[in-house]
């Protein structure tokens, strides 16, 4: 008990030094928590956008379609009643829609641009995705109509407005070049750059005859489920159950870039932890060495009183642990405050990345909101306390091993 009391009071003996050392740790914690929150927020919104606008939770397709991702019409399959029944039988499945995706050139006036033409079953598409909720002009396409829905950026690039004529130029099922034409029906501005810039939605009833496919053909079936966390399990179960040479995969597998990003975030967190380790350890060693030098006579006295070396080490370690706890509390407190603000008000990616935000390739075109990660708070707090204790060990041993006579008489 007395060791705690001595250590605690010594912390406030040199308040400035203690608070500078704790402040350094707190700042490092704050940076770690903010970056962790930012990265998790980026991942969260990236995956949300991916699910809501591009991949849904689970996709079913031919393995070649997944592997090659060149939107070849050779990789289509017949979406029969059997596969539908399989999906309908699962309680987790809330909606699903077949899509036919193929490479095309979108021509508007004199301009043209390569796009992913997506023939959709409008009704089930609206149940599965949120694209229709982001209309900024016009209306969403109706079944069988000749209109197209495109993203705002694509429309601006090709100078297309509602009612303007468009042409989609592509190779059909036989390899012959064919086109479909119509009017621009709707323009959307979604948080997904892929939808905004590279996708043209047409109704399957209108597109299929030109493409040369039957109405029950699809290149993918996109499946929404009730909980994102179960996507992997549902995909695995569907993968096992589905026949006809089809495979099922979760949204995570569909974006190698996001998966790599997760790995990168983990590495980055380790790097930051390494920096905390370095900065914190230097700070703590500095404090303990200075403290021991200042208290040489006191160490000598304690040895004369009969304290063993390990007991003196304990006092210094408790002081270091106290700095760690103080730094941890301040850092986590400030971290909670800033993450709270970040989680509430978010951050415009353009502030961080400027105009180049689209070049990042992330499925984000909006504000990023911080994500609360309680485990990061607990982890980093324990980490700095353990770090402080570990860093204090050598200088504490050095202090405790001082010759009591030299220490008492300050030789």
């Amino acid at each position, binding site marked *: 008990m*007395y060791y705690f*009391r*001595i250590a605690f*009071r*010594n912390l406030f003996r040199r308040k400035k030094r203690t608070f500078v050392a704790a402040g350094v740790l707190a700042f490092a914690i704050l940076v770690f928590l903010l970056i962790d929150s930012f990265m998790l927020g980026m991942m969260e919104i990236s995956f949300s956008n991916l699910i809501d606008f591009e991949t849904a939770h689970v996709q079913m397709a031919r393995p070649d379609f997944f592997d090659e991702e060149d939107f070849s019409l050779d990789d289509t399959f017949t979406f029969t009643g059997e596969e539908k029944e399989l999906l309908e039988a699962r309680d987790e499945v809330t909606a699903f829609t077949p899509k036919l995706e193929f490479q095309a050139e979108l021509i508007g006036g004199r301009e043209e641009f390569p796009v992913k033409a997506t023939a959709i079953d409008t009704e089930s598409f609206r149940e599965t995705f949120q694209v229709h909720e982001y209309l900024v002009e016009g209306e969403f396409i109706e079944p069988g109509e000749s209109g197209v829905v495109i993203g705002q950026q694509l429309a601006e690039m090709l100078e297309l407005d509602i009612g303007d004529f468009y042409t989609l130029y592509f190779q059909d099922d036989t390899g012959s070049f064919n086109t479909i034409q119509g009017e621009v029906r709707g323009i959307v501005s979604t948080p997904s750059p892929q939808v905004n810039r590279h996708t043209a939605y047409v109704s399957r009833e209108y597109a299929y005859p030109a493409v040369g496919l039957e109405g029950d053909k699809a290149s993918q079936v996109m499946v929404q489920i009730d909980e994102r966390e179960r996507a992997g399990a549902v995909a695995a179960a569907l993968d096992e159950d589905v026949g006809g040479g089809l495979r099922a995969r979760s949204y995570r597998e569909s974006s190698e870039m996001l998966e790599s990003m997760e790995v990168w975030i983990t590495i980055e967190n380790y790097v930051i932890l390494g920096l905390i380790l370095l900065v914190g350890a230097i700070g703590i060693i500095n404090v303990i060495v200075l403290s021991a030098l200042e208290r040489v006579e006191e160490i000598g006295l304690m040895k004369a*009183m*009969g*304290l*063993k*070396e390990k007991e003196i080490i304990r006092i210094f370690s408790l002081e270091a642990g106290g700095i760690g706890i103080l730094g941890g509390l301040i850092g986590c407190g400030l971290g909670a405050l800033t993450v709270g603000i970040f989680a509430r008000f978010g951050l415009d990616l353009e502030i961080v990345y400027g105009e180049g935000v689209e070049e990042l390739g992330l499925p984000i075109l909006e504000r990023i909101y911080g994500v609360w990660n309680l485990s990061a708070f607990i982890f980093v707090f324990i980490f700095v306390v353990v770090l402080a204790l570990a860093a204090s060990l050598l200088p504490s041993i050095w202090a405790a091993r001082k010759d009591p006579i030299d220490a008492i008489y300050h030789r």
Partner: protein
Amino acid sequence: MPLLQLENVEKIYKQGEIEVPALRGVDLTISRGEFTSVFGPSGSGKTTLLNLIGALDKATSGTIRFNGDELGGFSRDDLAMLRRREIGFIFQSYNLIPVLTAQENVEFALRIAGGENKKNSFEKARSLLQEVGLEGMEDRRPNELSGGQKQRVAVARALVKEPSLVLADEPTANLDSETSREVLGIMLDMNEDLKTTFVFSTHDPMVMDYARRLLELKDGQITQDERRGD
């Protein structure tokens, strides 16, 4: 059995290649309850002698026995345990723990010596502080006490665990004569009441006046051993 027995004790300090003898063949026996003053010129080996019998240092040669146990065979931890239970120190510069109050400084010595619970430690420390004339000052920290008051706390700290031996290195060096007399009086009372053995090193004639045994050291050797009647 004597409390302390030194046989042919030598202590040599090395300063680079040069060997500096601090004690040379000292033979000394100190019994329980003695009130002994060691005097001599600076560099005569007084402090070295106190450090050796206080188990703070080890002799270069010769044997030191404390309660019959030879200290040469003790580990560092064994020596620490001996100091915490059997020996109290009083230093010239008081050496109180600055972050603890007077009460806590005294209580801490008792708690680490073991054997007393929290309540008893508190009461015993408080009572001893009252005995040394510090009633009402128990909650002051060392920086709020005068030199004499600090030395009283140091005396109380050295005595609270009722050690067999109290070693005091120039205990009055920083005190005025009136305060010195008061502090020495307290120690003499404790010596009489508790039969605690006191060994001082000093230049102060007043301390020598109080002592019942006078040891003179010169060049690391005892040149005079005078016992006085009560």
